[in-house]
C-alpha cells in the first residue's frame, strides 16, 4: 500500500530581493505504508523542504503530494511532526506538552491523559510527567517531542533531523529507541538526517538527494534484517551501503 505519493513536486523560494531559488525540482517518490524512509543529502538539497511539503506546512509551486490518495492542501491530522529541536512549551509540564496537539485540535477527552502516560512510558519517560522541559536533558526532551507527535495517533511521522541537536552517545541510543517505538506502534516514517550511518541503521530505503536544484539522485534499498541493533553495523552490507551513499553524496 502506498501511504504517500509525491508527484513531480517543485518548490521555489523567492528571497527578499526577488531572487528565486529552486529548492525542489520535479521530485517524485512513493512511500509505502509503515515504511521507514530516510532523506539524506548535503545542506540545501531540499530534504527539510520536502518534509514540510508532505506535512502541508508549505505550499507547492508545482506537482502534487497525496496522502492515502488525498491531495495535501495544508497541515492535516494524519501527520505528526518532530522538529530538530524538541520545541516543547517551556511553561507546560511534559504531560501537558504531550497533550498539546489534542488541546489544539479540540479532541481532549477523559482517556487522553492515560494515553499520554502510556506513550511517555513507552519512551522511557515515566515519572517525568509533571516535570518542566527545562528540568530534562536534551535527549529526554526530544523523546517527549516524539511522544507529542504520536499523541494524536498519526499514520505518518515526519522527522526533521530529530537527533541532530543531541550529543553522539545520546543520538545512538535514540535511534535504537525510535526503532523500538516504531516496532510497537508501526507508522510510516519519513526521516531527514545528515548522518549516513543513522539513515542506513534505521531505514528500509534511503533517498539520496542532491542540491541546486533539490532533486532525488538515487533511492537505495537497505536489505538488513530487522529488528536491528548496533550489531548491524558490523554487517558487511551495512558498511557497503554507507560507502555507496557517501560516494553518491560526495563523489568520493
Amino acid at each position: 500500500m502506498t501511504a504517500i505519493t509525491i508527484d513531480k513536486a517543485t518548490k521555489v523560494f523567492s528571497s527578499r530581493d526577488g531572487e528565486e531559488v529552486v529548492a525542489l525540482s520535479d521530485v517524485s517518490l512513493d512511500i509505502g505504508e509503515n515504511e521507514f524512509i530516510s532523506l539524506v543529502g548535503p545542506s540545501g538539497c531540499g530534504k527539510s523542504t520536502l518534509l514540510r511539503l508532505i506535512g502541508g506546512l508549505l505550499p507547492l509551486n508545482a506537482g502534487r503530494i497525496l496522502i492515502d490518495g488525498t491531495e495535501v492542501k495544508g497541515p492535516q491530522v494524519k501527520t505528526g511532526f518532530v522538529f530538530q529541536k524538541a520545541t516543547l512549551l517551556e511553561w507546560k509540564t511534559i504531560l501537558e506538552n504531550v497533550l498539546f496537539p489534542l488541546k489544539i485540535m479540540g479532541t481532549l477527552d477523559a482517556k487522553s491523559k492515560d494515553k499520554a502516560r502510556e506513550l511517555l512510558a513507552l519512551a522511557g519517560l515515566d515519572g517525568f510527567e509533571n516535570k518542566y522541559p527545562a528540568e530534562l536533558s536534551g535527549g529526554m526532551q526530544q523523546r517527549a517531542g516524539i511522544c507529542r507527535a504520536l499523541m494524536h495517533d498519526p499514520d505518518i511521522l515526519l522527522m526533521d533531523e530529530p537527533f541532530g541537536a543531541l550529543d553522539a552517545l545520546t543520538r545512538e541510543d535514540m535511534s535504537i529507541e525510535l526503532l523500538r517505538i516504531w516496532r510497537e506502534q508501526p507508522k510510516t516514517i519519513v526521516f531527514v538526517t545528515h548522518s549516513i550511518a543513522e539513515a542506513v541503521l534505521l531505514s528500509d530505503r534511503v533517498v539520496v538527494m542532491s542540491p541546486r536544484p533539490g532533486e532525488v539522485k538515487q533511492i537505495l534499498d537497505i536489505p538488513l534484517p530487522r529488528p536491528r541493533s548496533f550489531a548491524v553495523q558490523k554487517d558487511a552490507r551495512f558498511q557497503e551501503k554507507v560507502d555507496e551513499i557517501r560516494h553518491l553524496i560526495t563523489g568520493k
Partner: protein
Amino acid sequence: MSHIATRTPSPLRRFWMRSQGTLLPVITFLLVLLLWEICVKVFAIPEFLLPAPSAIWLATTEQAGLVWGHTLATLRTVVLGYGLSILISLPLAFALTSSRIVANAVYPLLILTQSIPKVALAPILVIALGANELPRVIITFLVAFFPLVVAVTTGLLSVPGDLIELGRSYRATRLQQMVQIRMPYAIPFIFSGLKTAVALAVVGAVVGEFVTSDRGLGYLIQTSTAFFRMPLAFGAMLVLSLMGIVLFQIVAVAEKLLFPWSSQQQAD
C-alpha cells in the same frame, strides 16, 4: 568575643559564607550611613546642605502621620497610572503584533509620544485637564506605558519559528496561536516590562506632583525645600525610593508565584 570565635569557628564561618550575599550590602550601607553621620558632625556641614542621617530619621519619624498621608497620595497616583498603562499596553501590543496594518499605523505615533519630554507636557496637561489628580495619573501612565508596550511586543514577536510551525502543524487558529503559544512565551518579557514600568511609574507620579499637586511625596519635597527643611525632604525622597523597591518586589514576587517557570527562565 574572639575566644568564642576561635572555639566555634566553623558554624560562625558557615553562617558568614551562607549569608554573605545579603549581609555584605547591608553592612556596606550601614558603614556609608555612619561615615555620612561622622562627616556631617566633624566638618559641621550645615543642615540645608546635607542633613545627617539621624536628623533625617528624626524629622521623618516626628512627622510620621504627615509623611504617611503624602505617601498614600503618591501611591494612589502610581497605582492608577500604572494600572492604566497595563490596561492600555497589553491590548495595544496584541494589536501591534497581530496586524501589520495596525503596527505600521500606530508604531510611529507611539515613538512620537515617547519623544515628548513628559516634564514639558505636564503643565500643558494641567491646563487641559484641570488642577486635579487626572493630569498626574496621565503623566504616570505616559512614562510607564511605552517600555511596557515595547516589552510585550518584543515578547510576542520573539517566539521561535519552530513553535509557530508546531502550532500550524496541528492547525492552530490565530487565536489559539496567540493564547496558547505567543502569550505564554511572552510572559517573561511582559514581567520584565512590568518591572521597568512600575519603577518608572513612581518617577512619573513625582514629576506630576512637582508640576501640580497639593499632596504627595513630590509635593512634600517641594514644600520642605522651600522652607529649607532638608531633613524632611531627604526623608520623603528615601520613602519614595523605598516605595519603588517595594512595588518592584511585589511584581517580582507575583511573577514567581504565578509563573514559576518564567523567573526560572530568566535566571538561565
